[in-house]
């Protein structure tokens, strides 16, 4: 059963990883990923932070679906997703994803799969605070293409 959490405060990846490792169930591989709020926008303008609006209930469900799908797709994989909401300053961790599998390939792929889907399907609305003003942003074409590649072939 995947562990999924939404957190308003600082996300401490080292603690999240420790917690995930403590839940070990005989897996031989653990892959973790930390996404950090970037200090610049896509077009290079300085960004002080982000505001992530969320829909209580629906947002958690969107994260849980993605984590559960990765566990089902990469058999024997255990998944964890921790995501920030609200104000996130540039340089702070915004998302933590971990996957544990019997062997490394599945763990790498499960983490990659979860991140690609989170980037397009997680129920968040993101406002970027740029030094020249605030703007609501949407997934890029690249984000959509990254998610799409998992529809093309099933590894197992």
């Amino acid at each position: 059963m995947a562990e999924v959490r939404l957190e308003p405060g600082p996300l401490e990846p080292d603690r999240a990883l420790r917690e995930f490792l403590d839940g070990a169930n005989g897996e031989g591989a653990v892959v973790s990923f930390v996404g950090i709020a970037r200090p610049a926008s896509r077009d290079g303008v300085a960004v002080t932070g982000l505001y992530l609006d969320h829909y209580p209930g629906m947002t958690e469900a969107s994260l849980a679906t993605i984590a559960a799908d990765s566990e089902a797709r990469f058999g024997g994989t255990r998944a964890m997703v921790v995501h920030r909401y609200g104000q996130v300053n540039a340089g702070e961790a915004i998302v933590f994803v971990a996957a544990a599998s019997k062997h490394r390939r599945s763990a790498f792929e499960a983490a990659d799969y979860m991140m690609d889907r989170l980037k397009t399907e997680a129920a968040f609305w993101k406002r970027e605070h740029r030094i020249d003003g605030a703007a609501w942003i949407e997934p890029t074409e690249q984000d959509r293409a990254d998610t799409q590649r998992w529809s093309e072939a099933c590894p197992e």
Partner: protein
Amino acid sequence: MPIHWCLESRLRILLFGSLGEQIGREIDADLPAEGCSVASLRMLLAERDPAFAPLARASARACVDQAIVREDYVIRPGQEVAFVPPLSGG
């Protein structure tokens, strides 16, 4: 005996992202007892207040009980209704 008094119920509509910022986090509407389609609700709101015009746009997706629904979905009293802009992802 009046037959109108229980014909409408108060519907609370939640708004997120840019819609919440532009219009407010929450608005109310009167919902007929027999319900109302998403498409009709959009028209009703846009006619009531020009500020609600963004809710009539196709990019504002309607959610009922936290799931995205189609335009012909009939909203019933007591359901949770929201309009959301396109997801920005995590």
